[in-house]
């Protein structure tokens, strides 16, 4: 089978989606380079090397075109607000004057009738007081990437010379903590060799307002760390569950953890809070540094060109991109999944897992997630914990929770 052929992104028999949920989040790759060299990064160290052909920074002409397209698209879809996320590479490499210019251009081009919620994901190494002032001035919600206490963080989040970035990141967290209105939270990539409770306790101790644990990007062709066959992936659930238990019991004293909250919400029939889990459609689109419009950027862990659509903000509007196969697949929700997923009782919670994690070079995206067994154990154990507490409180346990808890124990490891 060849990439892009019928049956690659979603079953050939799936009807074309009539989901008209418009894009809401526009992720702008304003810098294509990074001052860190993390070996797990999907941009630089996995299957797609297209970053090498990108300009270093997004030029004003691209920003103007993107802003104009975003404004037109929002207006055509009756939207009064959109989310624009600055991403990279490392977006702070743009420098403050360029980031101001980008933000001003976007506001002008999108139009005053459309509210822009700005976000930014940074590695934290360049954040200082003046950056935090700028974030506050432009009301930019900041997420920071941090993998745990220094000796853990510095295993992978390293500069080109191999030295760790933890000291700079801790300083950044301290600065951001003092501005709670613009500090979103921390993204932490799971490292099986670290102690999960130590990582969690550390993140709590430095005062991040929210946490999300990310599974390392990988799939059936490019296996994640520690996974040699599908069953091995259960180690990721075994890593996460001790954190879940500690977080769950802490109640209102603990910072939100989006993955756990999303699973709990999905078990209650609500929508996920993250793009990586749950059956709902995804409303994110990416604008590359050169203006190319792309699908979910983490598809770069699959194969060269996986995220490409062939469209650009210089020539095309966002409506045009909606029907490209990669984005169509996201709009199909459960309709994009292969038979094994559709038959599975967990699918209404996991949604097949994250799209890039379903890839294999022989079957495209019609596989369960490479993390399937981990997701099942995680979901089942969380359902079990919720069911136990509901029963103890004398409340009827919803059938979805009871069904998915059946084969698990609360901390089944």
């Amino acid at each position, binding site marked *: 089978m060849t990439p892009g052929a019928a049956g690659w992104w979603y079953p050939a028999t799936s009807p074309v989606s009539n989901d008209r949920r418009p894009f809401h989040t526009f992720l702008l790759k304003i810098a294509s380079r990074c001052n860190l060299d993390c070996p797990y990064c999907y941009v630089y160290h996995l299957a797609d090397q297209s970053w090498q052909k990108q300009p270093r920074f997004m030029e004003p002409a691209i920003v103007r075109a993107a802003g104009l397209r975003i404004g037109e698209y929002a207006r055509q879809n009756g939207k009064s607000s959109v*989310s624009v996320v600055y991403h990279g590479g490392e977006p702070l490499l743009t420098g403050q004057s360029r980031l101001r210019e980008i933000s001003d251009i976007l506001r002008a081009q999108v139009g005053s009738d459309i509210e822009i919620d700005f976000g930014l994901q940074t590695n934290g190494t360049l954040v200082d007081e003046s950056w935090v002032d700028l974030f506050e001035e432009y009301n930019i919600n900041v997420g920071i990437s941090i993998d745990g206490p220094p000796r853990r963080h510095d295993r992978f989040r390293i500069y080109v010379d191999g030295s760790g970035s933890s000291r700079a990141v801790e300083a950044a967290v301290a600065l951001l903590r003092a501005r709670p209105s613009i500090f979103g939270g921390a993204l932490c990539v799971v490292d099986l060799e670290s102690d999960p409770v130590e990582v969690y306790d550390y993140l709590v101790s430095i005062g991040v307002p929210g946490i999300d644990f990310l599974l390392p990007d990988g799939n059936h062709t490019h296996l994640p760390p520690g996974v040699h066959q599908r069953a091995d992936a259960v180690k990721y659930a075994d890593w996460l569950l001790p954190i879940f238990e500690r977080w*769950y019991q802490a*109640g209102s004293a603990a910072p939100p953890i989006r993955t756990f909250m999303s699973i709990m*919400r999905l078990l209650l*029939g609500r929508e*996920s809070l993250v793009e990586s889990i749950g059956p709902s459609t995804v409303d994110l689109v990416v604008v590359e540094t050169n203006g190319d419009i792309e699908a979910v950027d983490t598809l770069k862990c699959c194969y060269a060109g996986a995220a490409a659509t062939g469209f650009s903000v210089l020539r095309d509007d966002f409506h045009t991109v909606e029907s490209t196969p990669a984005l169509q697949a996201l709009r199909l929700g459960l309709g994009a999944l292969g038979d094994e997923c559709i038959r599975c009782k967990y699918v209404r919670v996991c949604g097949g897992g994250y799209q890039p994690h379903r890839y294999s070079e022989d079957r495209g995206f019609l596989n369960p997630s490479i993390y399937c067994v981990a997701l099942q154990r995680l979901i089942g154990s969380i359902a079990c914990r919720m069911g136990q507490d509901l029963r103890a*409180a004398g*409340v009827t346990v919803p059938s979805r*929770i009871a069904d998915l808890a059946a084969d698990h124990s609360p901390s089944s490891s």
Partner: protein
Amino acid sequence: METKAASRMLAGDVAEGQCPAVQSPEDAADELLRERSIAALPDNALRRLLEDLRTENVDARTVRLARNHTKHTKKYSRW
């Protein structure tokens, strides 16, 4: 799904104190969101989530429609 639950509340189908048959996760969630159900739980993540969902429903009722008018969550922003 929030839309469905909130719409039912708007329409008054599920009045406080009634106990509908638990058929779907949405119906079940409605039951769980009753104040007395939440109060019976210890201070844990489940209680906190149910309190949040209850607030989401109230917010949805306030603005008359859930899906298109509730403040968009930071769902797909990386934060």
